[in-house]
């Protein structure tokens, strides 16, 4: 399978804080790679590098073989056409209605008529299961609905790659499950490549084809969900549920400390 995204040894420092250290990753076309790591561990920073919102101090990122990291402003525009991004906070524009939020990208691209934009909005709302809420304002939506509208907005320009930043954070378990299911459905239906960052191991197991573990700015393991479950690495164990860890590696010191705490 063709490599869609290639991250080659990127490092990033904010002030004295080294956030990413020589991170390398490959994402194949059509797969969903989940990057799991603790909060503040640099997952979102990595995602923002992939879409070109941040520039690394060293290393490079290739999308379909084309370098992102040497481009700025106008140079990034054609590459960003390939992307959609769902932010952790949803980042909906509060002064715009749901329909205006979803239609903003197509409208500003100035290649669609108002009728076509309306059709796009309706189609994307239907895709995320929220038909008929176009006139609502973002503050009238629940957390789960906001995530789904943000997803519909990112789908409006038919991206080839979708980046999800903590798609299930701050959601109750049933809503988180609905979002995970939606991510899987869209992957099947639209055949998009996805990169998801999360600290929720259940989300990672559910939607991930492969899971990459980011620890202290470094990728420590990239494996399938099954391989992760079977891993005896104590750092990997920190992300696993108690039962899973005990099954594979009973008496792990990492787990004991965590449970004692």
């Amino acid at each position, binding site marked *: 399978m063709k490599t869609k995204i290639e991250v080659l040894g990127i490092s990033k420092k904010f002030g004295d804080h080294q956030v990413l250290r020589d991170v390398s990753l490959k994402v194949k076309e059509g797969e969903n790679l989940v990057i799991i790591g603790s909060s503040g561990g640099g997952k979102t920073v990595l995602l923002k590098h992939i879409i070109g919102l941040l520039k690394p101090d060293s290393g490079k990122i290739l999308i379909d073989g084309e370098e992102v990291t040497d481009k700025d402003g106008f140079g990034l525009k054609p590459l960003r*056409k390939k*992307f959609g*991004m769902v932010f952790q906070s949803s*980042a909906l524009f509060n002064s715009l209605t749901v329909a205006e939020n979803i239609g903003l*990208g197509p409208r500003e691209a100035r290649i669609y008529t108002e009728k076509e934009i309306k059709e796009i909005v309706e189609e994307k709302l239907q895709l995320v299961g929220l038909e008929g809420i176009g006139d609502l304002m973002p503050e009238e939506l629940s957390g789960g609905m906001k995530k789904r509208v943000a997803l519909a907005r990112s789908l409006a320009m038919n991206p080839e790659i979708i980046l999800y930043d903590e798609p299930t954070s701050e959601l109750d378990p049933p809503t988180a499950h609905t979002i995970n299911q939606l991510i899987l459905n869209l992957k099947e239906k639209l055949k998009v490549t996805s990169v998801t960052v999360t600290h929720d191991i259940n989300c990672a197991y559910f939607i991930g084809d492969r899971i990459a573990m980011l620890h202290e700015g470094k990728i420590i393991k990239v494996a399938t969900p099954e391989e992760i479950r079977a891993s005896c690495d104590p750092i990997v164990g920190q992300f696993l549920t108690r039962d899973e860890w005990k099954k594979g590696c009973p008496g792990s010191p990492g787990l004991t400390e965590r449970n004692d705490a």
Partner: protein
Amino acid sequence: MKRSLSTIANKSSAFFQTVGEYLRLLLNIVYWCKEAFKNTGSIIKQMAHIGVDTLPIASVMAFFVGMVLALHSGYQFAKFGAEEWIGRLVGLSMVKELGPVLTGLLLAGRVGSSMAAEIGTMKVSNELDALRTLRINPVRYLAMPRFLASLIMLPVLVLYADVVGIAGGALTAATYVNLEPSVYFDSLFKTLTFSDIFEGLIKAAFFGAVVALTGCYKGFKTTGGARGVGKATTSSVVLSFLIIMILDYVITRILV
């Protein structure tokens, strides 16, 4: 000694960096003005917010400033029997100086601060990044319409404030020193020239640009959540006041 030298060096470097970024944003906005005709909707929306919504407070301010000017000058001129000079003093003060400066300051407090708060909130809640991922340039989408609207609307507001201020002056002159309105306006029109009005409007256009540019700049530079938004809002007003005062002197020096 070494420590204070290093502090001075750091502060100077931060100052020049701010000036550089401020001018860079200005150039960026000027560049995107080429797309002004494609963004007429948002420019008109901003013009309504800046102009129409500011009218009530601008009216009250200008009316009372005109009245106070007439009160002070009426009291002094009455001592020499030169009450007819009230019209020219109020007119020239309003048109050349107080109209543009006070309306500029009013706009900085009312509109510049809201620009900084709005864009700042968008920045801290990732909405600016969301715009970029949708391939929408935030300077083109947010700053350019605000800049043009402010640049156009402040001169209009100043013209309006001048008229209201002069009317306020006429009312006080008539009631306080019993000066006939015809004498007041006669004295005013004899003195006031088109170049005086033009000077005021030139100042207004510059101040309008400063208010929007500063509000947007502070908004784009916001960091640190709600506290950062508050800080950006306050500093946008302070910086606008400062630049308006300095620019007022510079423009007056050039045009006098």
